Structures are given as structure tokens and as C-alpha cells.
């Protein structure tokens, strides 16, 4: 087993795992053993700036918000990829430029779809 090329990796993995878990475990044991517990209903209630919390946190959000998520994604992803493209622009070949244009075109297509659907107008 020790001759396996993955043995040292496994040891390192275990050490990394322990490195992360040991402090958590120690903190948990410390809290269990040494910190006196004084719970009561008021203390355990939800913190709402001193007020009694109203209703439930499990409320539903309108699924129609996916449109905003998509539009956000279009511009977000575009910005992330356009910046390195602009930085490396002078040293790029024709093939790279064309593939980038195709990528931008795909995102523009999404924008055109949103525009055609009429969700860019504020109702």
C-alpha cells in the first residue's frame, strides 16, 4: 500500500482534513464542556432588532424573477470575458477574434430575445 503513488497524496489529504476539522472540533468540545448554558425562550427567539419576529422566513419568491437573472448573467459573463479579450486584443489571431465575436453574438442573441419579449420596458 505504501508503495502506491497515491499514498503520499492520501496522507496529505488526511492531514489537510484534520487541519480543517480539528479547530472546529476543539471549539465544539470547548463550548460543550466549559461554557455554561443559559437558554430561555426569549434568548432563543429570532433576533429581529429587538422586535418579535412576524411570520415565517420561508416565503415564496415570484419565479418571474428568472428574467432579471438571465439579463444580469448576459452582461456579467460578457464583462468577465470581454476584459481579457480587450487586454490581449493586439496579439490575437483572426481565429481567436472570430470565436470571440461568435461568443458575444450568442450573448447578444439573449439580449435580443429579452428585448423582443418586451421585458426591457419598465412596466
Amino acid at each position: 500500500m505504501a508503495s502506491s503513488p497515491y499514498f503520499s497524496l492520501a496522507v496529505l489529504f488526511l492531514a489537510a482534513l484534520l487541519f480543517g476539522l480539528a479547530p472546529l472540533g476543539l471549539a465544539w468540545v470547548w463550548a460543550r464542556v466549559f461554557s455554561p448554558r443559559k437558554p430561555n425562550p426569549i434568548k432563543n427567539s429570532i433576533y429581529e432588532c429587538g422586535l418579535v419576529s412576524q411570520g415565517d422566513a420561508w416565503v415564496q419568491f415570484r419565479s418571474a424573477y428568472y428574467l432579471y437573472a438571465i439579463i444580469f448573467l448576459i452582461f456579467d459573463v460578457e464583462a468577465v470575458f470581454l476584459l481579457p479579450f480587450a487586454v490581449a486584443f493586439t496579439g490575437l489571431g483572426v481565429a481567436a477574434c472570430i470565436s470571440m465575436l461568435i461568443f458575444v453574438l450568442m450573448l447578444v442573441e439573449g439580449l435580443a430575445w429579452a428585448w423582443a419579449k418586451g421585458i426591457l420596458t419598465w412596466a
Partner: protein
Amino acid sequence: MVDNELKIELGKQGILVTTIEELYNWGRRSSVWPMQFGLACCAIEMIATTMARYDLARFGAEVFRPSPRQADLMIVSGTVTKKMAPQVVRLYNQMAEPKYVIAMGACAISGGPFKQGYNVLKGIDRYIPVDVHIPGCPPRPEALIQAFMTLQKKIDGQPLTGEGRPRFLDADAQCEFPVPEQGAHDLEPPSNQGVWPVEIQGVGSRERRDIDGRQVSTDH
């Protein structure tokens, strides 16, 4: 137990002698985190205390926590109206032990200049135990720093076992402080008998009673 002179003598030789209790209290008093919570004009002085000129960071208390779960100290800085009192008491309850309270300024102590107001609580110590009172209207930042040092001295002097130990180390100690509710004329109950044993004069009544509940006079 090493006596104090020997400890100082050893300290001069470069040997540090301490006890668990001292170390524990040193740690507690050196990182008293106040709750980020201000009620009125005193809060402005409290903010000034944390800023560069007065620099509360010297006392390890600059970290104002926005949640009671992470705070050790409540500075009641200003007039507590009867509308606000239940919230203050609930926030105090939601803080984790050990917790301390500084009543800052005349209003937090007694109602101050607004004491006669129908909507002003006449001292936050009617509902929660106050460790340090600072007089003043408002107290200057130096006064708040003085209160901090007083509180640190108090924490330093608390034994961890036996009589006089802090509430959180006492399994039988009462740690729930009932939140008052808005009644028809006043907060109900008008005080927490556990922390304010004096009976409070009822609305419209001119009776005065002593601690045992006996009527002492009928005039005001």
C-alpha cells in the same frame, strides 16, 4: 496562593505568576464588545468615544457588534421611552452570557429631564441589572471611558467560584428577564421585582410602600 508582594518581586525578576481566575478575567475584561445600539443624544457621545480622539480601542472595546449574540456589553445611551423599553429588555435577553450593562446618562438612570413625561421609563434598572451608572446629560466621552474602566475593575474582581461569582457560572441563577408589555396606562409589569425590589407607585395612587409592602404614607 502567592501573595501580592512576592508576585511583584518575582515579576521584577522576569517570572510571571498568575492564576486561572486572573487569566480568565484578564481575557474577559480585555475584550468587552459593546452592542451597536444607541437611543438618544448620549449615543452621539458614545460614538465620539469610539472615534480616534478618545479611542475606546485602547480598552479592547472598539468592536461594536451589530448583533446581540456577539456582544458582551449593552450601553443604554439615552432616554428609554416606554415604547422602546420592551425592545431594550428583549435585546438584553438575547445577548449571550456573560453580559454587562452601562446606564449612560441621567435618562437611562432615572428618566433624567424627561422623568415627568408620561412616556418615559424612569430608569432602565427597573427591568435589567445595571453594572455601572454614569451621571451626566450627556456624559462626556471621558465619563464613558471611566465607566469602562470601572466595569473592567468589576470583571477583574469577580471570583469564578463561590459567593459573588458571575451569574453565568451559577447554575441556579435567574437569567431570564421578562419583557414588559404595553398596558392601558403603563408598562406591565411596571418593574422586574428580581432586579428592582422596590414597589412602584401605581398610576393615580398616592400610596407609598416600603420594600416589605407596608404602606408608609398617603401623601406624596
